[in-house]
């Protein structure tokens, strides 16, 4: 039987897996380690990939999720892993990115998971539902709520940020 190679085009897969992991545990060396481990495992168990069960990215995300869940407890996620910098001398885009990353980092585990799957790994609500064993509608609602909480976090950041306040005053 003809077998599909799930890693035939690795670059977009690496980007999507990394983005998911970084949304989950924060950008940096830990996320890189988890991404590397995910691909090592994927290479080792490539033969077990079944194209009828889903796309390669969903398969890889499944592996990455297990790697994240199996991490030692002392590697718990902290907001330090998310981007933080002195906001005083940053451009607006960079500042916005940092605010976004920080806000994601302060979300609850489940919200981070959903945002990572939807906007990091670029999975559809249906694919996320299959991964979680939930209904698509329930995932859409959960995502909507997670976005609401993220927005609230960001609005809180914007109000508390001196750089933003300064830039707003300058306008």
């Amino acid at each position: 039987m003809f077998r599909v190679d799930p890693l035939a085009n690795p670059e977009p897969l690496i980007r999507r897996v990394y983005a998911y992991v970084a949304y989950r545990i924060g950008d940096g060396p830990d996320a890189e380690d988890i991404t590397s481990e995910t691909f090592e495992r994927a290479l080792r168990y490539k033969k077990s990939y079944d194209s009828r069960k889903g796309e390669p990215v969903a398969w890889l995300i499944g592996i990455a999720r297990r790697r994240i869940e199996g991490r030692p407890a002392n590697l718990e996620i902290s907001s330090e892993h998310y981007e933080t910098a002195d906001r005083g001398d940053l451009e607006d885009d960079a500042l916005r990115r940092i605010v976004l990353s920080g806000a994601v980092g302060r979300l609850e585990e489940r919200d981070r998971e959903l945002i990572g799957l939807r906007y990091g790994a670029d999975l559809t609500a249906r694919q996320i539902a299959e991964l979680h064993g939930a209904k698509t509608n329930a995932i859409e609602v959960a995502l909507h709520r997670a976005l609401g909480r993220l927005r609230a976090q960001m609005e809180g950041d914007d109000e508390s940020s001196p750089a933003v306040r300064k830039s707003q005053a300058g306008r």
Partner: protein
Amino acid sequence: MRSWRRKRESAGLEAELRANRPEPSPELLYKLEARVREDGRRLRAGSFRIAFAGALTAGVLGALASVGGLGYAATGAGQAVEKATRVVHKHGVTTLHKSAARAQYSKPKAKCPKGKKRVRGKCKKVKKARGVNFRRPPFTG
């Protein structure tokens, strides 16, 4: 109006999340891509070797078949097998099932009960033929 605004805000945030999604470092990307491609190349090389060996075998067989080599080889192999069988085959002790001695000294067959007679190895009731009942003639002195 409010829900439209909220929807627009939500779409903006979604776009922002997508646009600002974390990117892997070029080193990681390069390293992992190279690792995956190397693995793929190794597998492809393995399958190419198998395919090449298969094609070569098929070619040789085709060439042999075209000049009758296969029939020749089959006959040779058949003869070799026959010879080997003849050499290796072990003859057992021949037992004669029908012999004069066996007829004489074999185990005696069980007698049939009264009124029955052995017909083809089985005891069967013998019918008296009609009209053969013999009556003793009356005593006349």
